[in-house]
């Protein structure tokens, strides 16, 4: 039986009679160049596909032979060690104590964000980065705040903080730990301002002006270390009003530094003035204040008045000349 197609066959078209699957035969330079480029592209594509297949096969083999290698690369190995890197004084023991990590917990079970918050709560830690180092090490990198001054303030429990509260360069008040005793003893005490408590009740608001104080102390320590050691109290009582930092030393009750002028120049003048004053004969009036904040070439230096001997009752009302004499003498140095 003959098969009759439903739709009649049409006459052959050029597509049917002219095949285009034969390889091209370039017969001029332009065509040869194009064909060469096409060949290069073709083989690059084939090479890339082969490489993909090869890597896929290698991966499949690895997975088939030891699925654990690919399926569970770090199957929660218990934490063995905390690797600490810091720029301050905190130790690994302190970090371990602060983090309070259960040693039976696996490395993958650690909540790194929560652990980081615990470190930052201490205040002494400015930044902290925690990272898992497989298979069983927790890497902790911390950046600490450096204390600039000591401060007296009441802690959250209501007790006086004593020497354990410090102020950093950024004005942050924190409870310092593990600082060497000699470092703490050499730090001047902050006076003139009282650190304000945060509205939440936890910690203190940053103290203004510490940036300038740190700069002053740093300049003094680097250019006149002996002088810097004598700084006992740094007062910011006049800082907010007229930008003056007051310093008390055993020799001078009040040294005023201006924040508008160069600290190095002021320290140099102070050193010169103190040297001149020390050269005075024994028993001379003690120095009450040196005002370096005035600027210019003159530095006002005020002296305490020596004690006036007791007079008879008849002289109850001093004369104008006596009152003038009782005022503290003031001289001007020209360093």
């Amino acid at each position, binding site marked *: 039986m003959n098969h009759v197609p439903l739709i009649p066959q049409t*006459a052959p078209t050029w597509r049917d009679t002219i095949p285009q699957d034969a390889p091209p035969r*370039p017969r001029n330079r332009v065509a040869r160049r194009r064909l060469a480029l096409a060949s290069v592209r073709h083989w690059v594509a084939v090479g890339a596909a082969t490489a993909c297949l090869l890597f896929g096969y290698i991966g499949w083999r690895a997975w088939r032979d030891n699925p654990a290698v690919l399926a569970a690369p770090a199957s929660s190995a218990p934490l063995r060690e905390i690797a600490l890197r810091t720029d301050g004084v905190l130790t690994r023991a302190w970090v371990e104590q602060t983090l309070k990590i259960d040693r039976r917990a696996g490395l993958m079970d650690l909540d790194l964000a929560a652990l980081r918050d615990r470190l930052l709560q201490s205040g002494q830690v400015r930044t902290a980065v925690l990272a898992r180092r497989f298979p069983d090490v927790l890497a902790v990198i911390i950046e600490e705040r450096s204390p600039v001054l000591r401060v007296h303030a009441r802690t959250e429990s209501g007790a006086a903080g004593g020497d354990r509260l410090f102020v950093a360069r950024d004005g942050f008040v924190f409870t310092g730990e593990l600082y060497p005793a000699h470092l703490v003893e050499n730090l001047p005490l902050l006076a003139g301002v009282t650190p304000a408590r945060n509205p939440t009740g936890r910690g203190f608001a940053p103290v203004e002006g510490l940036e300038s104080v740190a700069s002053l102390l740093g300049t003094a320590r680097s250019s006149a270390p002996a002088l810097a050691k004598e700084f006992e109290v740094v007062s910011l009582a006049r800082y907010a009003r007229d930008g003056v930092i007051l310093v008390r030393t055993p020799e001078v009750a009040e040294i005023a530094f201006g924040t508008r002028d160069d600290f190095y120049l002021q320290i140099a003048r102070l050193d010169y003035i103190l040297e001149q004053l020390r050269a005075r004969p024994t028993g001379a009036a003690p120095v009450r204040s040196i005002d370096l904040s005035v600027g210019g070439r003159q530095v006002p230096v005020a002296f305490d008045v020596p004690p006036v001997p007791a007079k008879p009752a008849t002289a109850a009302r001093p004369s104008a000349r006596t009152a003038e004499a009782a005022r503290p003498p003031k001289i001007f140095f020209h360093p």
Partner: protein
Amino acid sequence: MSAFSKPRIVGAVEIGTTKVTVLVGEVAGSRLNLIGFGEFPSRGVVKGVVVDSKAAGEATHRAIDAAEKTAGARLQQVFLAQSGAHIDGFYHEATVNVGGLEGRVSAFDIENVYGLAKQKALPPGRCIVHFLRRPFYLDGTLSPSPEDIRGDRLSVGVWHVHGDQHRIADGVHIIRNFNLPVTELVLSGLAAGNILTTPEERQHGVLVIDLGGGTTDFAYYRHGRACLAGVAPVGGSHLTNDLALGLRITEGQAEKMKLLHARATVTAKDRVDSVWLNGDMGIGDRRFPRMTIEQIAAARTRETLEVVRKKLGALYTPGETLAGVVLTGGASALPGIEDAASRVFEVPARLGTPRVEVIEKLRHPSCSTALGLLHQGLSQQHDNNATRAQAGFGSKLKNFLDRLATV
């Protein structure tokens, strides 16, 4: 096609007798952007037929290379314009009895009658370039879309455009040797007609004539469709040859005289008016009567247009060609060509300008074919893809059920 898919780079290549023209288009979704153009003097092509494959190949490849360089992109496929004296055509009509439910025409009936109309055997060594379907007739009445209309007899005619498969293969292999596939083959006349006429003109009837260097392509549109297309093996180079013989000058001089002084109609009144061959008063410089030049050019032009009219046969009637004649191609630059065409075809004639916005260089009549080739090629490709999609299992099942219903 999504907005993020990579655009296709398609090329339209016309290997003409005098020059090879290449246009590069970027097809993104339904948008076509022209991004490159290349041109190179043609060699090894006579009357639109490749006679020296190496020379023609080199000229074509250089033109494609230049077009790719201006476009900054590499072609992915090529639409090739087809012309040449070997192109011929014939008409074949088929009629079927309507077998759909309640005497309505079904999709199967339409496909069946169209298939029968295309079922004409070709002479050996020939292959089809285009099937130009004419409108359907239902019981002798014109029916552009007869599906679901009651009737008894459905008929349709198809104009078969066919060519020598070796000549066509020569052109295709030139492109293949540049490592590019030819995805569509378009008759030059149809390509030019696609870009130079509006749907309204095609509905009213319009004849497009592409006067090339070696051939004259034409396409005749009626009822909105191309119903006849072909190639006349005469062109601008014949006019040059006539001038060379008639004036006894070289072909180069004749080409110069044609460009400077030839006209498609005679306007010179006396033989006193003359023109110089070179104009430098040097040795060999001669004077020719302008009237002689115009008479030679007008006679050849009239003869060329009459060949086209003769090829159109009885199908062409001035009354059915209300939109007139549109002329394009390099030889259409001859002054007075519109008057000559009007006299021969008895309808108004005009020079064609592309219906799309393109740069001035591409508005020249010699670029019309390449421009239309891009549009026609994309349109054909879209139709072919749709036909292949329809030829899927669902379509076959529907046809089978239709046929069952008729039994």
